[in-house]
């Protein structure tokens, strides 16, 4: 089977922008194809991750963005698993290339979250919850995650201060990321004293609402070499659903993420100890703790130590560095683009393009992108450095 690689990446500005979604995509596309032939000369299929049609009252984003890239008669579609939509798009591109369906596929993601105010985003995000019981009870994304967080604090030694430290760590990372929505350091007090949203979560435990688009070009290793592009190998891909309702899951063993990560590890022929950096889905601070455990980086109950230097973490922790980009929390979380922004960060880290925030010696990255609350769906990829064939 052909070896799928990421051959190029691009992203729009992240945060509160004055551009519609398709224009954000234009910016991401221009960056991704800056040194390349026209997309129409290379790309054979397009997948678009997009969470909600309500932000811009627009479905058919596959067709729309393919056309915007100058591609008319190619397969193009939108894929949706709430905030995992971006990694679903990446996964389809990877599968098409490794199965010989196509030589080059464009995975993109876009979300224009700020077009309808905060209440518009709150409403759009709540469509990810089970309608019959959860939505009708008035829960929100922060309160759903707070239910996970409350239980996690109950079962483990973690404290609200630990969760705050995760936010502090991710902001510190973002401060060195020119793409970040919030490229500034914060302190623990700022998190602990921020407005209550859904206890134990406060405003600074929550990833922001924001706009953004990303584009990731997946090709065969041969084509990437022909194009003279730095390449990163996609060594494994896994995906797993779990119950849609939070109540019916194990709320502290994030089993769907565990299955997705293990599938990706198995395909890559590695285990968790081989991972140098991981971009995990810290939509809320507690997620980073839970996902560190699900990914096999941390023993049960000690994932909250992700903010500590490896030497200071509990026995059984790996040396992984989590979310060098700043994570969803500080890099930004434009829902449908997030999974591709994770891939972008890993691409830059593994190709020596991460500048000030480079994690020294990073050769293997894990991506964990989730949709719905927690692991209602999880998509995971293992990326590794690659030599041109």
């Amino acid at each position: 089977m052909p070896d799928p690689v990421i051959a190029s990446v691009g992203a729009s500005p992240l945060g509160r922008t004055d551009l519609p979604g398709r224009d954000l995509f234009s910016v991401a596309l221009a960056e991704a194809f800056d040194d390349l032939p026209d997309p129409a000369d290379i790309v054979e299929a397009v997948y678009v991750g997009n969470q909600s049609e309500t932000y811009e009252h627009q479905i058919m984003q596959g067709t729309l963005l393919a056309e915007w890239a100058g591609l008319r008669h190619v397969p193009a579609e939108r894929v949706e698993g709430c905030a995992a939509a971006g990694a679903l798009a990446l996964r389809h591109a990877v599968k098409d290339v490794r199965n010989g369906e196509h030589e080059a596929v464009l995975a993109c993601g876009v979300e224009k979250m700020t077009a309808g105010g905060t209440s518009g985003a709150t409403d759009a995000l709540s469509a990810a919850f089970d309608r019959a019981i959860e939505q009708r009870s008035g829960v929100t994304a922060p309160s759903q995650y707070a239910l996970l967080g409350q239980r996690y604090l109950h079962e483990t030694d973690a404290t609200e201060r630990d969760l705050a430290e995760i936010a502090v760590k991710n902001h510190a990372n973002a401060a060195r990321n020119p793409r970040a929505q919030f490229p500034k350091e914060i302190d623990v007090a700022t998190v602990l004293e921020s407005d209550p949203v859904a206890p134990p979560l406060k405003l600074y435990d929550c990833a922001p609402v924001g706009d953004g688009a990303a584009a990731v070009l997946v090709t065969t290793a041969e084509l990437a070499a022909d194009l003279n592009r730095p390449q990163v190998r996609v060594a494994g891909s896994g995906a797993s659903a779990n119950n849609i309702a939070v109540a019916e899951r194990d709320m502290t063993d994030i089993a769907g993420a565990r299955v997705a990560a293990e599938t990706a590890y198995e395909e890559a022929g590695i285990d968790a100890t081989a991972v140098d950096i991981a971009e995990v889905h810290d939509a809320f601070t507690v997620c980073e703790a839970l996902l560190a455990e699900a990914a096999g980086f941390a023993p049960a109950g000690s994932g909250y130590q992700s903010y500590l230097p490896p030497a200071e973490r509990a026995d059984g922790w790996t040396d992984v560095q989590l979310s060098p980009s700043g994570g969803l929390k500080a890099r930004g979380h434009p829902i449908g683009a997030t999974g591709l922004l994770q891939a972008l960060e890993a691409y830059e880290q593994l190709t020596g393009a991460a500048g000030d925030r480079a994690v020294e010696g990073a050769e293997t990255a894990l991506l964990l992108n989730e949709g719905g609350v927690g692991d209602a769906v999880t998509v995971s990829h293992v990326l590794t450095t690659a030599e041109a064939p």
Partner: protein
Amino acid sequence: MSDDALDATNPRTLPGFFDALADGELLGGVCTDCGQVLLPPRPACYACGSRGVDVEPQFPEGEVFSYTAVHTPPPAFAADAPYTVAVVELTDGGRLLGRVAADYDDVAIGDPVELTVREPTATEREVALDYETDWPVHVFELR
């Protein structure tokens, strides 16, 4: 699985489930293979995959498994905020999310609660889908 038609009177559908709930009866699916309780009932058990699912009344009491308060509500529920929600583990083993009729500060994990059912408010009816208009709302009360 039962041979009854899967129509809106069947408690294996949401309309049937909420009809029973409006009468004060919480019906759960119970897996005949592994015992998993499914709330609401559904065609198959997520725990073991079996389609052997009975429908049985669930005892309307349980304990708080996790809880929080909603300070930034969806637009339709703005007037209620902050309000408390919880995941409750019922006596018969199922878990169900719902509002708690108590202040956040008065709730703790492990607290015993009772399931009550009320008619939807005018505001809730306004944001309901056509088929949801008369569906009741369940609320947990501290015991």
